[in-house]
């Protein structure tokens, strides 16, 4: 008899959303509070993992047709590219800049080049975690 995990399914849908939001919060909060690209990436990966665990693998694959290995490449490109951006203006590699801007709705916001760098870290971590776990999971001898 097939077990019916209604409770798990219902809960997961809500919880996944919360974890995803939390992970994005951690990612953006990193500059001024505990958090950052690494832990944010791991959180995102765990949210997606929860989906994979709760629902069937093939279903999620259909719903999220993403190849996570490309995340790694994208992340590395972001991280390395940020470094090169500063060299265009004659600064040493990986010099970071920041400033404060008045944006509509959000008010005073600090924008820094560390953010795209951290985004690179974030993407790589998400890509790696899911690549490793999914490869191992799909390995049915």
């Amino acid at each position, binding site marked *: 008899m097939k077990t019916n995990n209604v409770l798990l399914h219902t809960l997961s849908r809500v919880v996944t959303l919360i974890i995803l939001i939390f992970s994005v919060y951690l990612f953006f909060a990193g500059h001024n509070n505990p958090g950052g690209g690494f832990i944010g990436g791991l*959180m995102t990966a765990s949210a997606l993992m929860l989906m994979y665990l709760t629902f069937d693998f093939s279903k999620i694959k259909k719903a999220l047709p993403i190849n996570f290995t490309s995340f790694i490449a994208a992340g590395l490109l972001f991280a390395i590219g940020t470094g090169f951006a500063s060299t265009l203006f004659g600064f040493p590699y*990986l010099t970071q800049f*920041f400033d404060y801007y008045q944006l509509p709705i959000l008010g005073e916001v600090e924008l820094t080049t560390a953010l795209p760098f951290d985004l690179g870290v974030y993407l*790589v971590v998400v890509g790696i975690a899911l*690549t490793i776990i999914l490869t191992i999971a799909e390995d049915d001898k």
Partner: protein
Amino acid sequence: MSWLHLIILLPFIFAIFVPFFYKYLPRIHTGWFVFVVPVALFAYLLSYIPLIARGQTSYETVNWIPSLGINFTAYVDGLSLIFGLLISGVGALVVLYSVYYMAKEREALHNFYVYLLMFMGAMMGLVFSDNIIVLYLFWELTSVSSFLLIAYWYQRKQSRYGAQKSMLITIFGGLSMLAGFIMLSIITDTYSIREMLGQVDQIAAHGLFVPAMILILLGAFTKSAQFPFHIWLPDAMEAPTPVSAYLHSATMVKAGIYLVARFTAIFGGSVEWFWIVSTIGIVTLIWGSVFAVKQTDLKALLAYSTISQLGMIMSLLGLGSAALYFGYGNESAMYTTAILAAVFHLINHSTFKGSLFMVVGIVDHETGTRDIRRLGGLMTIMPISFTIALIGSFSMAGLPPFNGFLSKEMFFTGVLNASELNIFQMETWGILFPIIAWVASVFTFIYSMILVFKTFTGTYQPKKLEKEAHEAPIGMLIPPIVLASLVVLFFFFPNILSKNLLEPAMAAILPSFIEAGGGFDVKIYAWHGWNTELFMTIGVVAFGSLLFVSLKKWSWLYGVMPEQLTLNHAYDLGLEKVEKASHGITAFHMTGFIRDYLLYIFGFIVVVLGGAVVMLQGFSYDPSGNAPVSVYEVVLVAVMVVAAIGVLIAKSRLTAIVAVGVLGYMVALMFVNFRAPDLALTQLVVETVTVALFLLCFYHLPKFKKEESGVRFRAANLVISLGVGTVVTLIALSAQGARVFEPISTYFEDSYELAGARNMVNAILVDFRGFDTLLEVLVLSIAGLGVYTLIKLRLAGRDNE
């Protein structure tokens, strides 16, 4: 680049074209093209004779590595000219001989002539080099090309064995010689031999004098097949006969002689040099001549004879170096005879030994064997070869009217003079030299007679031979005829040689005599009255004939010495034992088990770091800067200790994994306690992932032989792990109490102003030290792709499907 350099390098340049001649002009024997080279060399070197005979020298320099003082300086004096003429002259004859000896259809002639030219060039470079590093370079080139030539018929096991043996021994000597050269250059601060001559006094006073001398002599003795390094020469007889005639009688084995002669001016006159060179020489002389009589293979006989003759030249050089002790004067003049005898015999030996080898090659070529027991009665069939062999052998035995007689007489004069020396303790031991020399000459006489009479007289036994014996073609006979005529010519007109070559050569060996204003007036006479030397020769002939006739009655004596005591046996056994021992050592410590290698690594850490702590008395504990310990930390540490012990003593793997997880979470709590929220967050997540992966591995362990037992106890592991723990703890305790500089973290505390970030950790990660993060991300990527490929790529499994 002068003509001299070009002429030295000509064989190398020409060697490049030899394969093309072989390939595109197959109808003409390649040897004919090669023949041009030594002839050109010989003709060019002849043009130096008038200059050298006037007592002048010539040198040319080409910069090679000027910043290190290593330049290719070619230096022509009497000594190097003699060698140069021998190398090119005998070389030309050998090439001519090989044209008839090596069949065009069967042999790989391109290999043969390339190696031969390489050897010729190396030998020319060796004798004309003034720079010792360049000399060493050419020295090793002769070793390499000789190795290639000995193993020319590489299909044969004996050839490969002989090549390997000669390679090992001569390279061993070459390397020690290099060490000696380096010591010399340390003493004198130059690589040039000519410049060293100006500093002879400093060299003699230096502490490295004796080590440098012994190392250089090792090189000379191994190359010139002196006792006990002579064992490679008989085995090198597996080479084609032209090679044996060229390398192993006339040229390469004399490289050591050249070296000793060249360095006599630097080391000569010291007691160590005198004794080492003359003793080794005289021992080699008697050893070689005694064992030559035993041989049944003609080439082996000639090999031992070469060893013996080289020993004779060597001992003469050693005895003659006494002249340098006295300096220029009447007293030393009589000892220079030994040097003269050495140089003269050097030339003579090249002529008669070269011709003898060629004759043996002819006999081998025309009858199919070199074994004395199967040969006999060839006199009437091969009259020309017989005549040449007779001339060569009688010259070797030291009989008139051949040049060997002259040098043998001078040899006796040299040893007799030396026995009257009253320096270097020669009063007590000196009398041994003439006795040994005389006995060795008797044996020399015996084997010379064996060579002629056992081969050419007696009964002809066609059944034992592979081919029908007949005289060799004329081309094969010309080279030995030329050499044999020189043997006779030098006897009747020795003073042509002495005026033009021997005197300059002596001037080169004893340069201090020239500086002192003296010259050498060498006159060689075939007849010098009824003196001791002549009586000694008569005695040699009388006793030698007696022993030769009764050879069958006493040759059983050679069987007395057991095989186990021979030097060859010692060499083979030594090689075998070294291989076995090194294999044993490797098999002992390279077990293939990671746990053993880890034991070595950790043991090494304990020994080196622990040893450093103890020896340097580095342990110091200063608790003054420590923070107070809170109750939370005590509890956390207690839990961690329990968990760690649990990992060790757990009976099942699952328990161990869970205990590792507990440890990890405790570390996360430690981070919380020590106010590191970022670390705590990361540690929690990473620990979870790791434990999950451990569980995955655990789940997939094979069912077969699944062990649910705990960790097996090993005393060594306990000791090492306790040692590592103790050492690391001690070092950590000493390190934390000894802070030398203020930490730089105050700078990062301004991160809000500097990087616009209130989170200092994050500011360090992405801004201050962003480069580290970049590379760590890269590491993560590689790990992830590694996992991906390890699982997806299954080359081994693909075949099975």
